[in-house]
């Protein structure tokens, strides 16, 4: 029993370590891809590491109260929570994390949880732009959660399961079995929601620096910011893995390294898709993005659900 717990813990740590580094490097790489479109070279791929070290190495910090501390902690907990309940590689013990039969629901909860924690922390910072950003963030999140949930429900309905592992298992056997092809409406709704979830353009209104200086984390600094950045990497990784699992057949191969390679390729492409849209568009205002999510993506999600219902 103890050994199994310890092994599990060890495996999770390995998995966490891999995803953290991968996500950080992915962030750095994507910054370079974005830079390429902008006609420049861009930051070094390892820049996110230095930034995090730098932020943690800041000597002073200002606190605004207990919730201000807890904000980043909740956020990180949200990120970790999201990640820890997603099986990264199908069939692998090491990367199975704590997946269980109802994990889709838990993951959806955790996606929300981090945001709420952040909202509490930011709200206490006293800076007027933080609550504005929080309000925007929550409003937008509510909006994109709708098509996302519909997509998830459609997928769950399709396979009759709320377990990610089972959903992935059902998609094995070739790309034609992926949800993306078996249930394209759900995939479309989900991927559109993913744009909002990743807070890239055109849905970056929450942290829009031109309008409200960086939004909720305006007052976050030093190690608070370091924590948020770490979370950003993990959360990003978690989300991409989730979407890979839900819609693109997950990553599965008897050889763990090949499986990791598949995972990296797929998540890279998923992220590239976000960046692809991101650099091409300005951002929506809050009510525009709400209107957007409640429009076509929701419709697509509904179609997907209805399709499954019939």
């Amino acid at each position, binding site marked *: 029993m103890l050994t199994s717990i310890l092994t599990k813990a060890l495996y999770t740590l390995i998995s966490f370590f891999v995803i953290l580094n991968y996500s950080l490097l992915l962030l750095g790489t994507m910054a370079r*891809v974005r*830079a*390429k*479109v*902008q*006609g*420049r*070279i861009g930051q070094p791929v390892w820049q996110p590491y230095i930034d995090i070290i730098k932020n943690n190495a800041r000597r002073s910090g200002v606190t605004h109260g207990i919730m201000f501390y807890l904000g980043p902690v909740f956020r990180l907990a949200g990120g970790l929570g999201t990640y820890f309940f997603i099986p990264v590689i199908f069939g692998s013990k090491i990367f199975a994390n704590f997946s269980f039969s109802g994990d889709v629901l838990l993951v959806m909860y955790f996606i929300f949880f981090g945001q709420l924690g952040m909202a509490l922390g930011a709200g206490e910072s006293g800076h007027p732009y933080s609550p504005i950003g929080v309000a925007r963030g929550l409003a937008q999140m509510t909006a994109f959660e709708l098509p996302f949930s519909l997509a998830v429900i459609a997928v769950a309905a399709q396979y009759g399961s709320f377990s990610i592992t089972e959903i992935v298992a059902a998609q094995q056997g070739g790309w034609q079995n992926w949800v993306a092809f078996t249930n394209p409406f759900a995939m479309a709704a989900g991927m559109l929601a993913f744009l909002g979830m990743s807070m890239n353009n055109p849905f970056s209104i929450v942290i829009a620096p031109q309008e409200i200086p960086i939004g909720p984390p305006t007052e976050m600094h030093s190690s608070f910011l370091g924590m948020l950045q770490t979370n950003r990497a993990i959360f990003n990784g978690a989300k991409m893995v989730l979407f890979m699992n839900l819609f693109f057949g997950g990553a599965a191969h008897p050889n763990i390294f090949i499986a990791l390679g598949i995972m990296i390729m797929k998540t890279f492409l998923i992220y590239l898709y976000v960046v*692809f849209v991101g*650099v*091409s*568009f300005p951002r929506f205002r809050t009510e525009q993005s709400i209107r957007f999510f409640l429009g076509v993506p929701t419709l697509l999600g509904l179609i997907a659900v209805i399709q499954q219902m019939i």
Partner: protein
Amino acid sequence: MSLKDIIAPFSVWKRALEKPYTNRKPIETRPGADRYRGFHQNAIDQCIGCGTCEEICQNNAIDLVPLEGKTSSHGDSGLRPKIDYGRCCWCALCVDICPTGSLGMSNEYIWITTDPEDFRFIPGGESKPWDDRAEGYRRAEGYDLLEAERVEMPMLSFEESQKSFIEMVQGYSKEQAMEEADRCVACGICIATCPAHMDVPAYIEAIRNDDMGEGLKIVYNANPLPASCGRVCSHACEYVCAMKHKGEAISIRWLKRYIIDQIYLGDYKEILKSADESNGKKIAVIGSGPGGLSAAYYLRLLGYEITVFDANEKAGGMLRYGIPEYRLPYEQVDKDVEYIRQLGVTINQDLKIGVDRDFKSLYDEYDAIFFSTGLKDPYGLEIAGEDLPGVQSGLDILDEVTKGKTPDIGKSVVVVGGGNVAMDAARTSRRYGAEVTILYRRREVDMPADEEEIHESQGEGCKLVTQAIPLRVEKGDSTRLKLFFGMAEMVDQGEGQRPKPVLIEGSEEVIECDSVITAIGQEADYSFIPEEIGKNLVFNRGMVQINEFRQTGDSKIFAGGDIANRKRDAISAIADGHSAAKGIDIYLTNFKEK
């Protein structure tokens, strides 16, 4: 909104396939443009420290500071601009205005420091990496903030001028004077070089302001003979003028003349300060040349009673008797002299000390004596035949002309010498219709005469033969005389020495002429000073030794002018007179009682 609106934005990805705009090594690969206004450079030896850059800098960024290894000299203040990069705005107006063109800008633009005090430096004086940079901002051809050429002075044409004694230089009109005065950058470099240290920029400014009264005041502060000086001054100032580095110097002399020409003698009294109440002390001034008159003027202002003794019929000395009328009309000398006379200076004419009046009696009667008797005795040629009739001295000719006599020069004249007297004699002879040849031992560049005198004499048709050494004079056949002369070659005397003419053996030539006029210099005559007083004075190569207050070995006697000053020009004599006046004043107020 159409489908295009959704698809078109993705066209930005086209750029991802192209080469990035980024320059990876901008610092190394992007030097400033050839014209870039970067950090300053200064050709430190070309710079004269005139401070025009400081003047134009609107940011007060430039200081003039002494630089090690640079000392003040004539035409160089010894200061160099120090630029504060805590002020500079890199407008390069300093570069544009720099009269010497020494200031420039390199195309270097990176200077980082942690200490803000670093940002002050003397370009060229402190070694900087960009000192030798060829690229950088320079004033463009076709754009200039200063005028390099002087306003042309209206002059009689040579055809016209050689016919009469009418003054050749006609003087500036108001517009011309204003325009010329406008060229001045008011640096004040000339002040040190002017023997009288006249405040040149100030009176030029008065011209710009069209305030002649102010101008006259400034001029009289240092020069009581401006009408004469404004015409015949040797203008040492113009040789050091900052603008001369750019082109032509400001016509300082003509501008001074302009001021004087604008004011009638009758108005002088209202403008200039009047003499102090008489303080009862009496001073004798011997010689009414520029030195004597200057001393008389300044002493009179201080309240001394002045008596001037002069051997000639009219006052003015060499100004009147040594300079022909076409250069300095007599009424201008009269104007200067008359004002001094009006101040209450007594001038005794036709009274020769040593002949008509005993020097000793003056010595006893007066509280102090200033003498400035000038150089009157011409040097002889020291060659065979110089006693023949028709060989005369230039000074004598000029003297005769002044006195209204027609000189006996005949149809053709040879003038020997290269100084102003030689030129004057030659040109005067031209005016009497003679063919004139000037012989000079050295090269044209060595001639001590003023440039314009040489130029004008040639313009008026005097023939100049340089490197010619007179050998002997003989009685002529068709003409009165024959002058034999040999050609000389210039032999280098080493660094710092001027080359010496050496006769080329067997190069004898001959000119037939009616007169030979010698003008190779003069010497002083001290015979009027009695032995008992004379023994106190120190003489050095024919000159009286004086201290900075122009005091001679005898504390009561002061001297100045050509007899004491190697510069031998009117303005130096005036300066001597001024200094002597100061010296006499100090002497009489401090030392008389004991």
